[in-house]
């Protein structure tokens, strides 16, 4: 699957799960993975918020 932003290969691992974040190695865009069976979809990941952390 390629990056919707820059078309570079994202290299999503086979064991990736829904909710996991993948970063484009070329442009750095972050995407959240959504999996249904073997179908993988991407949506723009949320940006880090001020209240994020532990």
């Amino acid at each position: 699957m390629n990056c919707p932003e820059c078309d570079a290969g994202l290299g999503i691992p086979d064991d990736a799960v829904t909710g996991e974040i993948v970063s484009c190695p070329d442009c750095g865009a972050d995407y959240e993975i959504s999996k249904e069976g073997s179908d993988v979809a991407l949506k723009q990941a949320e940006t880090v918020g001020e209240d994020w952390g532990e």
Partner: protein
Amino acid sequence: MYDRIRKEEKMLRSEAEAMGHDAAAVDAKAARMSTDTTAPGLGLDGAAVLERCVSYYRGLHVTAALESMGVSVTNRFEVAERCGNKMFMTLRLNRRGVPTPRTHFAFSRDAAMEAAEGGDPGYPLVVKPVVGSWGRGVIPVGDRDTMDAILEMRELSDTPLDRIYYLQEMVERPPRDIRVITVGGRAIAAMYRESPDGGFKTNVALGAEPSPCRITGEIEDLAGKASEAVGGGILGVDMMEDRAGGGRLVVHEVNNTVEFRGLSSVTSRNIPREMVEFAASEAAA
């Protein structure tokens, strides 16, 4: 309950399944609830929920909703609320007699500057945002000019919490701190966190190197007291070795949705398993 799957969430789910639990990862971002929503309606009747959101406010509000339906959430709302705000946490630790760095609170720019300039705590000091983690916005301040620049930046922010000023004494310590994970008030594992470049911040999220730390009687006692002070549950208790106090430990932070990938790499304890066991026992109680 998550909003971003990290290594920790994968480990928790894997352990829960290995223990025979019917485990599911639920995306808080996709959750919708109303005043009519019930635990059975969400498929959570009798369930143990581990709240693992990286967004503090999202996790806190989801917890409020689930608890109102009678769902067992770890950590409980009151614990999350106390730990997610450094001022509330520090007040709680101090009131319960847990040694913690001397901290001043101010509620305007002028009062914050007066506190800094008043020599109590005096420079150097550390300015921290009351909400936030991973070391963001934590700034060591050595003089008036730096303090003034920070206050000016805060003034330009639209965030109401930027009007709350948390000024902490700079504890003279080795270039490391100690992270202890407590489960149900027991210290189960500990590590030293050393900043990679000898810098001020020791967050693993910023590249700090974890190394094993033996749980001494002092660490065990202090971690237990810190856990009790905020209401128990699953916590990450951060301590510093105070050189001025002869190496005596002080607790500077208690974390609510603790990350443990770093600590898991230097301990033989199965941290996710102990967390799942605790959450399940809380739900069964």
